[in-house]
């Protein structure tokens, strides 16, 4: 176990170094995301102004502002390149360089990506969190920060990231079976954006649709952690949403293993 940790820790460290190599990318990305949040904020503001009483499906203006910034933060923290990094390795055949090493393919990709993101995460997470709390303090007049919600939020984000990672990996494995996964990748992106609550909070959908959406794995990606932070769940609901996250994570890990097994057979009969 210790040995195993050291192995993947080295991937993590390598990832950190590699992440440092692309600082400029990150800055551009950060500016883009911030602009997106501000646009979303004004759109929702317009919606709320026109609805009159300033309350919509249990959300007030402060809630929705919080939601816009938090959901974007979560979306960002849990974003993953696993589809493209895996697909690229499959396409150019460099995946064989991973196969000649005594490591688990999925775990080594995961460890490396985590390392790659460490800097980016610290550079966004802390400022956005502080910003959100300052906003709440100014508009509400009291400190609304809740340490328990915050800790639960962190746990939930970790689960979301892992689910996102394995879900995306699954799309990456498609490259073994399809010549070009570009189209699928686009489709996946929009599906996740829509079903995860990154654009519209799932709570805003009509009851029947909402119940369905909440059971899908996508809700676990963005909606769940955001709502956890905002304290929108009762204790029972909390148990339920965490259980769902764990179940989906296990499901995706298992599917990924199975697909990798099939992919190896495929590689063997048809080549890369």
């Amino acid at each position, binding site marked *: 176990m210790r040995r195993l940790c050291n192995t993947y820790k*080295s*991937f993590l*460290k390598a990832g950190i170094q*590699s992440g440092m190599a692309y600082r400029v990318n990150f800055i551009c990305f950060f500016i883009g995301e911030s602009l997106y949040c501000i646009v979303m904020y004004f759109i929702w503001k317009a919606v709320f102004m026109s609805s009159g009483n300033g309350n919509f499906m249990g959300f007030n203006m402060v809630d929705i502002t919080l939601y816009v910034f938090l959901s974007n933060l979560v979306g960002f923290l849990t974003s993953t390149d696993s589809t493209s990094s895996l697909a690229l390795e499959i396409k150019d055949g460099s995946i064989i360089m991973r196969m*000649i090493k005594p490591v688990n393919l999925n775990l080594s990709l995961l460890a490396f990506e985590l390392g790659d993101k460490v800097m980016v995460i610290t550079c966004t997470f802390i400022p956005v969190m502080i910003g959100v709390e300052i906003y709440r303090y100014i508009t509400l007049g009291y400190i609304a920060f809740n340490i328990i919600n915050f800790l639960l939020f962190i746990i939930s984000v970790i689960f979301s990231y892992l689910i996102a990672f394995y879900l995306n990996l699954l799309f990456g494995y498609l490259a073994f079976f399809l010549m070009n996964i570009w189209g699928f990748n686009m489709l996946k992106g929009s599906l996740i954006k829509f079903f995860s609550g990154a654009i519209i909070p799932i709570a805003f959908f009509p009851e029947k649709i909402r119940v369905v959406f909440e059971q899908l794995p996508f809700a676990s990606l963005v909606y769940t952690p955001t709502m956890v932070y905002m304290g929108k769940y009762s204790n029972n609901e909390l148990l339920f949403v965490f259980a769902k996250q764990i179940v989906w994570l296990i499901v995706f890990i298992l599917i990924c293993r199975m697909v990798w097994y099939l992919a190896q057979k495929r590689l063997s009969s*048809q*080549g890369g």
Partner: protein
Amino acid sequence: MIKVQNVSKEFKKVVKESGLKGSVKSLFSRKYDIVKAVNDISFTVAKGEILGFIGANGAGKSTTIKMLTGILTPTKGEIEINGQIPYKNRKKYVREIGVVFGQRTQLWWDLPLTETFTVLKEIYQVDDARFKKQMDFFNEVLELKDFVKSPVRTLSLGQRMRADLAASMLHSPKVLFLDEPTIGLDVVVKSNIREAITKINQEEQTTIILTTHDLKDIETLCKRIIMIDKGTLIYDGSLLDMKNKFGKFREINLSLQNNSDINMLRFKEDLNLNSDDFQIKSNKEKITVIFNSQKIGVSDMLSYILTHTNIADISVNDVNIEEIVRRMYK
């Protein structure tokens, strides 16, 4: 040590029909072509041996290496290396081998070379003392010092190849597979790599299997070669035997002042050579004469050509491997 028995490898290739109609059709029913990349090959390798694989492009060398390293599963036949079956329990098996694919790299593109070594150290659990010893050894034979701090993407091909070789050796594998380790390198780096391979083989009794298109590699490194052509093993033995068996062919490249002079070269009539013993190839710029130097000495051949033609330029070379393969196959 290494036992390969009646191994074959077939690939299924999807046949694409052309045009839109073809693409739509292929969605529903796919036609496959079977490509026989390796065909019923058997051989064994003893511990500490260096074995060279040669053969023309597409002969099946890389495919064989991929099967030996557990990346591909043979369609038929058995492989046993160190008592293990490569494609079963691959993760355990690859601990004991080192692999270099000359056309690819196992180094981390964006990171300094040292970082790759650190990761490998952890993966293979090389302890500190051993790690230091290995690195010193690599510095000595491969001269990595000058560039270990540079990101891999900034390395030259020769530097990268040396680093790749070191990376494959860090954990002192029992068997080393090198698929074209000298591809694209200049003469100096090539000989540097050859020296390193020799030292590695001597120091650690590492069994080495390598493929190459460079006859020099084979001559300096391998006592034994295996030649494959179109997936079939056509020769297994020493290089010396092969040369003796198939004649010591030499190659003279010349350009003539007057191209019609080529008709003046009548080896059969003037020199009593059989048609098996020589061959003339010509194109616009140059003429290549390949001949058996055991039947006619190089100096005799040269003076014959010089007296019968007006040459602009001339050079004598060893015949390349492809030519030998071609001749053997005849």
